[in-house]
């Protein structure tokens, strides 16, 4: 055979390999093919192709492996068990940028499924290789490496600490400053995943100077980037007062409020999450947010959005109102109570209702003025209904009861308390009657109204144990009225009158 014929055999083999690998990579993009591929034993076939001479085949097989591992954690485990990772990690340091991208993609795909797999990636020295790739010039390689690091750090604090110890954070902060938007996105998301686990990690991120760069990107037109930036800032500020103050010192207010009108839903949600994390720490921070008009913006946001994304906004209002009665009054004055009432009636999920109920409790518990504002929005019957409803979850019931109790203890607006007399169970009724017994002795118009609206009748019908607090309150209410009226409204009065007819002797 001539030399050309010999070489042709090798050429054919190389073409066949290339075609196989490229087709597998293409098939692996569609989820329905992956089961078939797995059953056909594609892993064991792709593994030796990783060590192929021809670089394209190496790259494409790495890409195919990455796509397979991305789909399913069994396949990712198979990748780990097949000892492919050390080879990939080694080649991350050596090969060209396309291979690096593909190898980083595989590492990311493996690490994303569970902490054990991510630990496996870390154990074979993947972190150092990824951090070295972060120093590359090519933005695609940096993006892939940052993505992989982000997915590793996402699972738990140990892994995040390992990522930080590998020295990734300063490089990620440098990546954020790069002009490519995709790289910025991924770097911001990686920083957010690192900072979310513990205050020390968040402090490490802050020490690398991330806050300044993140806050500069707040008004970037790219929506996905803004999502990640706000998520990163909220993960940083949620841990402690100092971190939240540092985030606020980066002068994000009031430009953040502009992003509350962004067309992208998740940007708005992340902005409200950030505001919630800031306001929950101290009254001073809440005061700052209120003074810049943040409360009004969040209330408008609640009016415009639907569903689960309302939750951070509702919690933010609750936190602001919880700190002091000035701030609660500020929430009331910014028309927060009607909006929260709308949220309560529109939302169907229990955890959102629980948050709304808690927010009401925080607003209304400070002074009678606050309780009156809450009661005027006809919220108390709704709270009672939620408490009594057997379908509501236990958490919702507990929160509704607490909120109801705390509002009732300050409520002196009697028209709002009257509906509660009829439906409340005895432990709530006790508070309602107590409020009546506090107000009625001093207000004659209220006494009149109480009688004419049928409240006195209802109070007489309440059965209370002798000597209990409820009985005392009922007695103090009865003492506000003359004997005849109390007797007239007591139950069974008509019977006693009729009995008198029986006993009466006409003259």
């Amino acid at each position, binding site marked *: 055979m001539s030399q050309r014929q010999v070489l042709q055999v090798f050429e054919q083999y190389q073409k066949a390999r*290339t075609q196989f690998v490229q087709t597998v990579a293409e098939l692996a993009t569609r989820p329905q093919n992956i089961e078939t591929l797995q059953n056909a034993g594609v892993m064991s076939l792709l593994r030796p192709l990783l060590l192929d*001479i*021809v*670089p*394209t085949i190496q790259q494409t097989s790495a890409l195919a492996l990455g796509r397979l591992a991305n789909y399913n954690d069994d396949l990712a485990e198979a990748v780990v068990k097949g000892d492919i990772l050390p080879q990939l990690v*080694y080649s991350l340091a*050596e090969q*060209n940028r*396309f291979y690096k991208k593909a190898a980083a993609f595989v590492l990311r795909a493996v690490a994303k499924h569970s902490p054990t797999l991510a630990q496996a990636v870390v154990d074979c020295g993947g972190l150092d290789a990824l951090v070295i790739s972060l120093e590359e010039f090519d933005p695609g390689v940096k993006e892939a490496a940052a993505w992989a690091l982000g997915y590793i750090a996402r699972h738990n604090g140990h892994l995040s*600490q390992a990522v930080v110890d590998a020295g990734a954070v300063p490089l990620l902060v440098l990546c954020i400053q790069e002009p490519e938007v995709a790289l910025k996105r991924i770097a911001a998301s990686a920083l957010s995943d690192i900072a979310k686990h513990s205050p020390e990690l968040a402090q490490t991120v802050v020490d690398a100077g991330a806050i300044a760069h993140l806050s500069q990107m707040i008004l970037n037109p790219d929506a996905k980037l803004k999502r990640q930036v706000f998520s990163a800032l909220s993960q940083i500020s949620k841990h402690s007062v100092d971190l939240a103050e540092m985030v606020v010192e980066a002068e994000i207010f*009031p430009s953040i*409020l*502009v992003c*509350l*009108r962004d*067309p992208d839903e998740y940007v708005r949600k992340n902005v409200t999450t950030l505001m919630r994390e800031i306001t929950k720490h*101290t*009254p*001073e921070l809440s*005061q700052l947010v*209120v*003074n*810049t*008009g943040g*409360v*009004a*913006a969040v209330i*408008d946001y609640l009016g415009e959005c639907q569903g689960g994304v309302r939750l951070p906004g509702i919690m933010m209002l609750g936190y602001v109102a919880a*700190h*002091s009665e*000035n701030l609660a*009054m*500020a929430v009331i*004055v*910014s028309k927060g109570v009607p909006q929260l009432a709308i949220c309560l009636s529109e939302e169907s999920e229990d955890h959102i209702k629980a948050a709304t109920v808690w927010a009401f409790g925080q607003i209304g518990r400070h002074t009678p003025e606050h309780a009156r504002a809450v009661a005027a929005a006809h919220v108390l019957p709704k709270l009672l209904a939620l408490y009594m409803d057997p379908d509501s979850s236990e958490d919702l019931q507990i929160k509704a009861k607490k909120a109801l109790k705390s509002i009732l203890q300050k409520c002196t607006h009697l028209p709002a308390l009257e509906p509660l007399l009829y439906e409340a169970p005895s432990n709530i009724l006790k508070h309602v009657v107590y409020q009546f017994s506090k107000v009625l002795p001093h207000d004659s118009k209220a006494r009149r109204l109480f009688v004419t609206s049928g409240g006195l009748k209802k109070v007489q019908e309440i059965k209370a144990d002798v000597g209990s607090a409820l009985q005392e309150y009922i007695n103090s209410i009865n003492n506000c009225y003359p004997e005849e009226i109390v007797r007239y409204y007591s139950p069974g009065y008509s019977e006693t009158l009729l009995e008198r007819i029986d006993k009466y002797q006409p003259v």
Partner: protein
Amino acid sequence: MARLVKLQNEIERIKEKYFTRNRFAEENRQRENEAAIKIQSWFRGWQVRAYLSHLHWKATIIQKIWRGFRARARFRQTVKAVYFIMKMNFYHKMSVRIQRRWRGYYVRKYVHNYYARRRYMEGLIRKNEEIRRDLVDFSEFQRREREQIAMDREEQKKTVQAQRMHFLLSTKQCPGVFNSPFKPEPDEMELRLRRTKPQPPTASPRERDSRLGNRIPSTHSSASIARAHGAQPLPPIPIKKPQGPFREAAEVWAQRHRSLEPSLRVQTSITDLEEAQDQLRLEEWRNRTVDTLFQPFSKAHQNRRYERMIHTSSSFQPVPYGNKHFREERPDNLLGKKPLQRASSRLCNTHLRTAYTLPRTHQHIMEMPMWPAWSASHSTKT
């Protein structure tokens, strides 16, 4: 003699008497002795008693006087003490009144200032309105921007399309696809085709790129490292393990990540006191809606006591120079002539008198009766 014989006859009787007397005396001696003793003892006792009662009487006088003195002194002391307590009670009551007024004023002005809070809420409402308006404006602006960008992009796309499909333009003979004869007006695409200049279709993107100079990453170019046709990549360079009694990696890791367990003294930061003070200050800042502090005597410069001019007043009487006249007048030097009538003096003096008189508060002091000697000497001077 007879007396002697009588006496001798008496001797027996005398002897008898002597003996009987002695016998009686002897018999009664005891009794009489006792009686005498009794009398003496009674007398002595009476004497002593009289002396004792005298002493008692005197002692009583002394004690009476002394006790009276002491009691009066003590009474004076108690009176002083009661007076003092009465005064202190009075002061306490009065100071309670002062403190009540002061605390009410202070709290109402600087801590729970209702009007400041109301102003704050009103300001907050205005600020909220402003922010809402600004946000609405901004979102409108952004929406318009986005719409503008989208429209521009649409325009661009359609222009490119028109440029490439320029052959669909209708001719005189044959109407184009977009210029249907059954419709009254040609389609907007037709109008666009008429407007745009044609652009012939270019070569494929790959050739275009290479013509522009971009190198396409081909499959063979990445074998930048010159390798033989069948050579394997080289094995990795082994890293030298450090030789020596080093600890296990796991131990080092555990030690490195061991959490800090500081003692309470170490835990307390050195600025603990300052932090506590800061916290208190922040609490005050947060709980007060009023930011102005109470500064005592802050308006002192506005309530200045009037200071008299030293040249126009003295402690004894008002000085007419500066009030009633500004020129020194010496009528003695005139020697009986009339003083010169100055036109200005008639006009000015009246004004001056009102402008430069001292304020009323001091007038009554000024109009005190003057010492005659002083007034006489003073009048001679003027």
